[in-house]
């Protein structure tokens, strides 16, 4: 990388600007990542509770329907289920958690009263009521789990992306920029040293030439003085 960089002062200034910007970006992304992780931990706790409730309600619903099928018969349970065509209504909205858009699912008509389930009250048993109750609770928990777990998944994706960006800045971009800066600085220092050395050389050469000239002048002067004396 450093070899492609022009070791000029302008380039050094440009790299210093980029380092400044990257460091600020790195700090911001680190804060975002930490914030997202904190939000994620909250959602994770919520998701664990929801998942546990979901498991419990699934077990309860399964037990209730097994008992209803055993005691009232599969035909009776299927018949009671067939007495209703209406499905629960779901509406989805979205909310923003630290820049991550997560779904918000609203459900209606999941919980039904005894006279809204389609089957007649007089000819059915409490077992079917209990199975219907348990399944309504299960559906509510599934909807809640879908909302929380989707939010969790989206948060996790965003944390991963942010983490990759932070790591890219921290371990790739910034080290490269520091290397380039150092390279340019070293090159510039070297150029400066070479310049000084060259100037010194020139100075020495000039001094030597001046000394030689002076010696020559002195020699000529001495020679002239000797000729004059001889005359």
């Amino acid at each position, binding site marked *: 990388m450093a070899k492609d960089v022009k070791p000029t002062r302008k380039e050094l200034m440009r790299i210093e600007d980029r380092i400044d910007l990257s460091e600020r970006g790195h700090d911001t992304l680190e804060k975002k990542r930490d914030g997202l992780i904190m939000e994620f931990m909250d959602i994770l706790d919520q998701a664990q509770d929801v998942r546990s409730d979901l498991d419990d309600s699934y077990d309860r619903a399964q037990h209730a329907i*097994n*008992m209803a*099928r*055993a*005691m009232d*018969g*599969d*035909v009776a349970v*299927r*018949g009671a289920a*067939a*007495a*209703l*065509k*209406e499905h629960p209504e779901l509406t989805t909205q979205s909310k923003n958690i630290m820049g991550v858009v997560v779904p918000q699912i609203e459900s209606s008509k999941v919980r039904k*009263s*005894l*006279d*809204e*389930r*389609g*089957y*007649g*009250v*007089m*000819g059915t*048993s*409490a*077992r079917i*009521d*209990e199975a219907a109750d348990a399944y309504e609770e299960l559906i509510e928990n599934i909807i809640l789990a879908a909302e929380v777990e989707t939010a969790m998944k989206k948060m996790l994706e965003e944390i991963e992306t942010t983490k990759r960006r932070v790591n890219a800045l921290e371990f790739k971009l910034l080290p490269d920029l520091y290397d380039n800066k150092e390279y340019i600085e070293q090159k510039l220092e070297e150029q400066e040293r070479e310049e000084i050395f060259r100037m010194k050389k020139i100075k020495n050469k000039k001094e030597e030439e001046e000394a030689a000239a002076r010696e020559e002048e002195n020699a000529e002067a001495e020679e002239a003085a000797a000729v004059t004396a001889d005359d």
Partner: protein
Amino acid sequence: MTVRFEEQNWESANYEYVITRVRSRRAKLFDDDDYRKLVRMGPSEISRFMEETEYETEMNALGARYSGVDLVEYALNRNLAKHFDDLLRWSDGRLYDYVARYLRKFDVWNVKTIVRGIYSGADANEVEDDLIRAGELSEQLLDQLVAAGSIEEVVELLDGTIFGDDLAEAYQDYEDSGVLVPLENALDRAFYDVLLSGLPTQPEVDSPTGLYVSFLTAEIDFRNLRNALRLARSGAEIDPAEYHIEGGRLFDADEIGALATSTDQLVQRVRESTYGDDLDAALDTLEAADSLIEFEHALDAALLEYSDQLSNRYPLSVCPVLSYILAKEREVDNIRAIARGREAGLDSDEIEQELVIL
């Protein structure tokens, strides 16, 4: 009036013939040992065991179309239908009337199944398989109902039966609401309305008719009690009086409306009633465990125990026939409970708790 009513009808009924045949059928019902064996079997073993019992014909007939516990359940239903249809065929006069009154509940089951099938767009063959042809409606009418293309057509076809007027009246409510509740309630109400109609309201207590009426009254009272408790538990804004069935001696419509708001008051009322002693343990369970299912279970047991008393006291009356009907129904319920319970992985103890065996 009661005496004349009984005399008139005792003469026109063929009790001796029917009761002799019923005794032989009753002897074939599963006993404790059979249940003990079944509870320890897996679903496949239960199917195999059933092929060597009274249910052999139905198991073989349905074996090509169903398997596992579904086969057991359909075979049980078909066998039940065959036995109850035999009872109606054998019975004459007043006995036929007595038996048919109770077995019309299978007509209610069948009409509900057909209406639900049409409502949910189920296949006609599937609906037909779910029927229990043990009621009074003819095979031909049931076939016409299964083939009906709309609920309106079903209502029209049932015109002239005991369900005709109530269904026609409820049809408009169904059209307005779009749910089957009005039609299903109308069917149940029609069944309960004719259950006691024409019977003496205050028959001699210690007489076959008296016992029969007492049993039907208990059935209505227990149904009212279950419904009141279910409504009280559901918290729905439903007037319990709308679901009250006339003919019981435990509550009237006004009283049930007031009692259904408080389970405690309702329980107290039952404790103080004639059923108090029979249902004492069940009411304790209801109060302690807060479980309506266990209470319903106890009600079933109480009814069965009551019916068993019927069978011994008047050997030449409707009582042994009714007792057999209830015992057969209970056998079917028990076998199905065992098979489904084993299929669902319930352990033997849990299944045994759910069985009602005398």
